Each structure stands twice: as structure tokens, then as C-alpha cells.
């Protein structure tokens, strides 16, 4: 599919079992088995840009990654990656099921915005 001004791609980073199914759906998948590999993959995906009418912009709008890997990404790296409106880096539960990381992330957002967790 041709990329136009408003069309982006989706990527997924995770272990092989996890991403294989999504590959069939047409997502860009990158295998990562350790935190270091995941970190590299994230920076590489974030650095990929497309050139349109002499304007370059990011290629990927959403990067999904396994909760296990997302947990191990350091805060500094995460901040660097999410400085701009895109991409959205979203942890999703892996094959082993949810670790609660996704919900705790939401909780942290509430704490950040409100000052305390009001959904206890």
C-alpha cells in the first residue's frame, strides 16, 4: 500500500511465538528476546522515516511490545522515544498472559495527572 501523508504503519516487537500471528495480519514484526534487543528494535523503528513531498516523518505510528520487554525499558529511553506525539509505544500481554504491567501503567498516568491514585 502506498503511504500518503496521513498513513502510517504498525509494528510489533516481541518473542517469536508472540509476533508470528501478527505478521500474518500485515504488521511489521521484529523478534526480540532480551531487553537489549527490544531496546535496539525500538530505536530502529523510531528512527525509520518516510520522505513525502520533501518532508520526512515517522513511518510507524504504533509500536506494540510484550509487557515482559516493556518492563525492562528504562525510563530515560522511553522518554526519548516518546518525545513527540508519535509513535505510541503500547505494552500488550504476551503468550503467558497479563503481568498487570499495562494496568499499572494506567495507574501511573492517573497519579501523574491527578497527584494521587483515585481509582483504588
Amino acid at each position: 500500500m502506498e503511504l500518503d501523508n496521513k498513513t502510517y504503519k504498525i509494528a510489533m516487537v516481541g518473542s517469536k511465538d508472540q509476533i508470528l500471528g501478527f505478521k500474518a495480519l500485515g504488521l511489521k514484526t521484529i523478534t526480540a528476546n532480551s531487553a537489549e534487543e527490544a531496546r535496539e528494535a525500538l530505536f530502529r523503528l523510531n528512527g525509520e522515516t518516510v520522505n513525502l513531498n520533501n518532508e520526512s516523518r515517522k513511518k510507524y505510528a504504533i509500536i506494540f511490545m510484550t509487557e515482559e520487554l516493556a518492563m525492562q525499558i528504562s525510563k530515560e529511553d522511553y522518554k526519548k522515544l516518546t518525545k513527540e506525539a508519535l509513535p505510541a509505544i503500547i505494552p500488550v500481554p504476551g503468550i503467558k498472559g497479563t503481568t498487570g504491567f499495562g494496568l499499572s501503567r494506567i495507574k501511573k498516568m492517573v497519579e501523574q495527572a491527578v497527584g494521587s491514585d483515585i481509582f483504588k
Partner: protein
Amino acid sequence: MAKLNVNPTRMELLNLKKQIKTAERGHKLLRDKQDGLMQKFMEIIREAKTIRKNVEDKLQKAFKNFMQASAMMYPEMLENALLFPSAETSLAVETKNVMSVRIPHFKLHQKGNILNYGYLQTSGELDMALEAFQEVLPLLVKLAQIERQAERLAEETEKTRRRVNALEHMLIPNLKETVKFISMKLNEAERSSITGVMRIKASMENA
């Protein structure tokens, strides 16, 4: 409260009074912005929570199907079957402006067939698993959109809260304190000049 380090002159007093006016107007504006952000954030975060729970359930089921499918097949065959997908997925992104925060909106576009392999060497479970994934994907995209929005709003809300607090508890009280200090100093100077004149007048009358 600490007073600012300025000269106690009438000029400074006028400047400071102007500053207080601006600061108070800014404070009011920022507080309104904070309220607006908070309202939007609350809406979004509630939705984010329900969607995430929903996604986690559905994804778990999809993975279970997929695990079953992969258990029925040779790993090499599974990989071969999924190696070159003909389905394509892309995302239309628009950014909306909420209280001067740019938040993204995603819209999923898919084309092509996900079941893009020979039926002979693959099991029926794989078809089912892929269909399950296909069903989850729109939800995942929705989750991504709403969590990213929540994240952006949370950052902005925190920033705004800090600014409101800084104005309310530091800048404005300091300015007020300084204005008070200067006006007292000026009054004192006025009194002292009056008494000075009175003293001179009295000594002239006595002479």
C-alpha cells in the same frame, strides 16, 4: 514569603502592580486549562481501563488458539506458511488539538487476505487463530490510541498543575509582599519628610 530584591521606588511599585495583574490573569487562565484537561483526562482514562481489560482477555484467547495451532504443526511449516503475508495493514493518523495538547487519532485500514497459504500443510486451528488475531487488532489499535492520548494528557496536566501552583503559591504572594514593602517604605519616607518640614517650620517660628 520572601520579598523580591528591588529598589523601593514608585516606578518599581507601578511595575510590580502591573506584574501582579498579569500573573493573576495567567493564573486564572491556567486553572481553567487545568480543569479542562482534567475533565478530558478522566473521560479517557476510564475508557482506557475498560478497553485494556477487554483487550487482555481477548488477546489471551487468541494466543491460546495460536498455541494450539502451532502445537499441531511443524514449526518450520508454520513459519513458512506465515512468512510472506499478503495482508497489509496501515493506519490513518490524525492529530486533534485538545487544550493545546496534540493527541493522535488512529484509523485502521486493512486489505488482502490473512489466510494466505496452502490448506494442505496447515491445520484448521491456524485459520481460527489468525481470525482471532484479526478480531483483536482493531481493539489493539483503539487501545493504543486511547492510551497514547491519556499519556499525553497526563503529561500536560502535570505541567499545568505545576505552573498553577508556582503562580499561586510563589510568584503572586512574593509580588504582593514586595508591593506591600515598597508602599510602606514610601509612606515612611512621606511621613519623615512631613515631620522634617514641620520641625524646620517650628524652629523658624521660634527664632
